[in-house]
């Protein structure tokens, strides 16, 4: 078991410029079922993905792959023609908000937006647009979602992952890779790794993902990686304290970040003085989360948290 994505995922890719194409190709090599692309200026053409199979992905495949993905003008056409149930967005920042809304309008249940640099007000409008719709948005500004050996969506290096027992949720892309790498090395492995993205307004927060991991029978523990700014970690801590049945390990980046940089003046009122790494770590510790003192200790912290609960 896993959350969000698995071998039943049928993926669309929105935006197959150089960047989108490179990572869509890595996903196909990994064994993800990519069924089509949306790229208005190239509608009617076919995107061909071929090369050597990434054997760290879905097992039991031949050594080479060749996939021809039809390119559509609109997401709705693509969904009707392919039955896609997930989409990954690589569209550039100025157009990405619109791409998310188009995918939601086509009623795709899972949208994963990789794009970095979307204007905040665009995301404010997108979030409002998604309210009440059955679509889940992951990101933006995130590495994507991967269920090892089943489905890779996004930009993470596939080979560092290994199917296993721990769920990973993170605001930072590269720190997700660090955690995954350590969990692979210490043998715990991952059920699913989810990057929720580093932007101030995103589609899915820590609590949403923690709930899913809590309900997933295969997930025995969760590594949660946060950073300074906002209060998402404090909210997650409160939820963990009240509801989480499984051990959680955490890391918070930014202990040494200079205060005042990037944090708006009046923004401090909203968080009521919260937002520092120390506050977040205190809240998580109080909720029973084992905090990794440095980013190289995330795997060990998970092991320790699992031992405490006698599941390791």
């Amino acid at each position, binding site marked *: 078991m896993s959350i969000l994505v698995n071998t039943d995922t049928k993926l669309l890719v929105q935006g197959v410029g150089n*960047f989108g194409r490179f*990572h869509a190709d890595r996903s196909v090599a990994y064994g993800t079922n990519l069924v089509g692309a949306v790229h208005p200026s190239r509608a009617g053409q076919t995107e061909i993905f071929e090369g050597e199979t990434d054997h760290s992905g879905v097992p039991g495949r031949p050594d080479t792959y060749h996939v021809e993905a039809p390119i559509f003008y609109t997401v709705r056409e693509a969904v009707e023609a392919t039955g896609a149930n997930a989409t990954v967005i690589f569209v550039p920042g*100025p157009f990405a908000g619109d791409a998310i809304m188009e995918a939601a309008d086509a009623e795709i249940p899972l949208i994963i937006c990789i794009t*970095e*640099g*979307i*204007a*905040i*007000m*665009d*995301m*404010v*409008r997108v*979030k*409002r647009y998604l309210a009440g719709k059955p679509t889940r948005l992951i990101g933006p500004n995130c*590495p994507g979602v991967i269920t090892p050996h089943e489905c890779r969506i996004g*930009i*993470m*290096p596939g080979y*560092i992952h290994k199917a296993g027992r721990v769920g990973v949720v*993170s*605001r*930072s*892309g*590269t*720190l997700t*890779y*660090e955690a995954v*790498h350590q969990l692979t090395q210490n043998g715990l492995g991952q059920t699913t790794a989810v990057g929720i993205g*580093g932007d*101030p*307004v*995103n589609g899915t927060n820590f609590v949403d993902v923690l709930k899913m991991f809590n309900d997933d029978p295969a997930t025995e523990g969760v590594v949660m*990686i946060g*950073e*300074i*700014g*906002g*209060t998402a970690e404090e*909210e997650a801590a409160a939820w963990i304290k009240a509801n989480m049945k499984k051990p959680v390990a955490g890391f918070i*980046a*930014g*202990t*040494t*970040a*200079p205060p005042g*940089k990037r944090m*708006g*003046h*009046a*923004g*401090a*009122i*909203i968080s*009521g*003085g919260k937002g520092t790494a120390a506050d977040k770590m205190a809240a998580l510790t109080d909720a029973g989360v084992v905090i990794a*003192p*440095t*980013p*190289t200790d995330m795997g060990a912290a998970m092991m320790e948290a699992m031992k405490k609960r006698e599941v390791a």
Partner: protein
Amino acid sequence: MKIHEYQAKELMKARGIAVPEGQVARTVEEAVAAVRPLVEGSGNPVVVLKSQIHAGGRGKGRFKEHPEVAGVSVITDGIRGGVRATEERVRELAKLMLGSTLETVQTGPEGKQVNRLYLEAGVDIERELYVSVVLDRETGRNVMIASTEGGVEIEEVAEHTPEKILREPIDPLTGLANFQAARLAHGLGLTGDALKNGVRFLKALAQTAEELDADLLEINPLVVTKQGQVMALDGKMSFDNNALFRHKNITEMRDPSEEDPAEIEAGNFGLSFIKLDGTIGCLVNGAGLAMATMDIIKHEGGEPANFLDVGGGATTENVTAAFKIITKDPNVRGIFVNIFGGIMKCDTIANGVVEAVQQVGLEVPLVVRLEGTNVDLGKQIISGAGIPGVVSADDMRDGAQKIVELAR
């Protein structure tokens, strides 16, 4: 991106938000010439002379060269002496202020050079209030915050008298609704003409924040005049960099003298860079990993010289530029390249590092830790280049320990 008070007021005025009459001046002569039209236009003999720097706390700030001069002066000589007297006083002060260094609680001890002044017509103030529009990350919406406690730090109000802070979340579908603006204006104790003007002011302010992609729009103080007008006596605005592509006029307001030259240069190459005080230069991909790299350097007993995220789409050229920016800092005694390639391919980083070392040389120890996409290719490029003094690291802690040791 931040702008000056006078620029914020220009933008507000153009959008129907009431501000006092004012004129920017870059020279003493311009300042003096601005006096007469201001006084005659407003009918008020009082003018205010304000230093234009981005940092706050100007009113209480003092010039290093002239400690008797404040960052903001209210000039009342005109009440008895007429326009002439005001002009003379402005000339005298402007000479002392322009080109001098203003030190405020926000500039730090080094202060900031004042290159522009803003002359403003005096206003008959009855009450001083506070209003701002900021993003509420919890709800993913803008929120308007208002308080009867104007002219003081809002953080202080929030801490000591939180009941004096009013909030209205702004639905992007409708903007700040009339009833919300009315509720705020009523809560601020406005009545009569001031109430009507206040509602109009608050609605325009909310709309401005949204349409201009301001990530902060703060009016402190918002004043009610004896004539029942509601106007912005000060104005602080900053903008979402990711939205500047649709605001050419705002982009042109950028004042490079307010920014760190290394940070500007980094920005031109799409790098996210913040200068710090330590000795170990960091070149990292991803904001989270970049922060965590600083954390682990400190944990191992070193001090980071910078935060540097090369971002996902960096090319060899960008990485070369990043390397040059780091080596330009005379405090740097060692460099730690820490890459976990996802978007960023390790070979791109490796090529950039090799290119940079060939161009600018390498006078300090360099520790390189590569992991992720195309890691083997990246390692081959680094070792194949035969750069003396390069040490490779197995993981992040190993790298941090090595660079802290080598830079000692």
